[in-house]
């Protein structure tokens, strides 16, 4: 995952695109890559990639997102730097696109500058979410996104979890459904995203590579007070 110069994350609302985008950007930066993360979320008003701008800045990740007070706006702002980075890519770029077909429509407006090679377009799937309870729902979601985004999806990321109630069974069942969805669409499951605390309990049983996550997107009451000593926190504001 994130091996191509450009990775585009799409998927249904609340499937975990932002968490995966942030983790991917921070991992790449830690490996010494020049990373750009573009926040194209025009769907949700909170918990967007741009809210983690302090963490990203500290890690040396370039963030493309609305600036000034527009950081907080619930307006569909696509900053022009997005088109620049797509025309002249530098290092690795991740696009965090908003949820559902509604959010993917933004991608449709960028097809004139989207490169045709060196690009991976991944749909994030969480089968615990009400909008994709089964593979039929996931297949329909992929078709909807492809139609409005005017792109071909190249792979799937399994991200089935239940927050703190996640069990190995939930992860493995989600991965199985993702593989089933992939078979129906002739798409590979490039990875299963797994929280670092769960990694040891499922790793050997996965039908695809694991992508180990740290939880970054979280509400203020889940922020451990002592974490402040190791860097800025992910906050809403």
């Amino acid at each position: 995952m994130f091996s191509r110069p450009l990775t585009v994350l799409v998927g249904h609302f609340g499937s975990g695109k932002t968490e995966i985008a942030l983790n991917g950007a921070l991992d790449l930066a830690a490996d010494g890559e020049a990373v750009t993360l573009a926040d194209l979320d025009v769907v949700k008003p909170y918990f967007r990639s741009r809210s983690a701008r302090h963490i990203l800045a500290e890690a040396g990740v370039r963030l493309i997102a609305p600036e000034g007070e527009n950081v907080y706006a619930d307006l569909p702002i696509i900053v022009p730097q997005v088109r620049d980075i797509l025309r002249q890519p530098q290092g690795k770029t991740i696009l965090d696109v908003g949820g559902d077909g509604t959010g993917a429509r933004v991608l449709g407006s960028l097809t004139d500058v989207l490169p045709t090679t060196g690009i991976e377009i991944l749909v994030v799937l969480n089968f615990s979410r009400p909008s994709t309870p089964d593979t039929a729902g996931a297949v329909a979601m992929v078709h909807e996104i492809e139609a409005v985004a005017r792109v071909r999806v190249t792979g799937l990321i399994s991200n089935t979890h239940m927050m703190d109630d996640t069990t190995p069974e939930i992860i493995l069942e989600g991965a199985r459904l993702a593989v089933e969805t992939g078979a129906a669409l002739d798409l590979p499951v490039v990875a299963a995203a797994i929280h670092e605390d769960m990694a040891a309990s499922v790793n050997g049983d996965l039908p695809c590579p694991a992508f180990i996550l740290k939880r970054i997107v979280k509400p203020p009451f889940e922020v451990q007070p002592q974490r402040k000593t190791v860097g800025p926190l992910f906050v809403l504001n």
Partner: protein
Amino acid sequence: MAKKLMKGAEAIGEAAVQAGCHLFFGYPITPQNEIPEYLSSRLPQVGGTFVQAESEVASINMLYGAAGAGERVMTSSSSPGISLMAEGISYCAGAKLPVVIVNIMRAGPGLGGILPSQADYFQATKGLAHGDFRVLVLAPWSIQEAADLVQDAFDLADYYRNPVMVVGDGLIGQMMEPVEFYEDRQPIKELPPKTWASTGWKRDRPKAIINSLFLDPAELEQHNIDLKKKYDLMERDEVRFATYGALDSADVVIVAYGTVARVCLSAIEALENDGIKVAMVRPITLWPFPYEAVREVASKAKDILVVELSTGQMIEDVRLALHRPRPIHFHCRLGGMLVSPEEVIDKVKAIKAGTSEEVHYA
């Protein structure tokens, strides 16, 4: 039904459907748009109707009509939108109509911002609109509790024939948590048939007239007395709260509600490790307020701390709860900024060290 991972807004919408609400009328405003978004696709699946009204004023009056016809009906909005609905909510209270109103609060005043806030406490509990009326105000602190309270809200609204409001800060609308709905859920109140509903007169009962206009002052006085009796019953029977921590001998008792109480609970757990004993009372009904619970826990604590995402609107109720005037410490964040566990820890330590300034009031 198996657990689902839901955004607060989705859970609130699904809770309404599970409670038998087949009608939703509303007007968009951040940060609660996902409630109408969810219901616009969900309600048709159960034979219900979703209408995006032309305004909040229209929405609340659509609720008036639907509730008058005996239907379970809900709207949701965020702070400025609730202000626009105020007149209609008073009409619903005056006409004794059961409606459920969800307010996902954002920072004000005015247009304010779109980030979380609790600054509509006064509005919800004391000054929602004109006239002598009250609404039950339920304040969840988690997505599961939001789902549960929305279902309870429909039962309470029907039982008392009165508007019920569910209030959450923006996080309750936007954050995501596991939620379960129970298929065998029973109403929390015994609910008689709605013989008062205006469903078409077939000469088989007295005419059902839904109205809040009483020109005869004696009649209107009696109407107000009847309403007051209902509000007295709510104060007697509907107080809800939860308590946490060192209830028997706390250094500090915190009073906080909604997601702020969860921030405080994270702080309480960390403070425990430092040997500082903190108790917390979390009002679940903001009206009626849990005066007795606050009084009792506060009587066993050395100091009192109120934490809110407003400039101290709940302090008034905490003061009313106390046996005698006592100093109250206060911590808040405003404008959409959020309280962190660390801030609460620092505040409690400052209280212990005698360096926290109390709230001054006349």
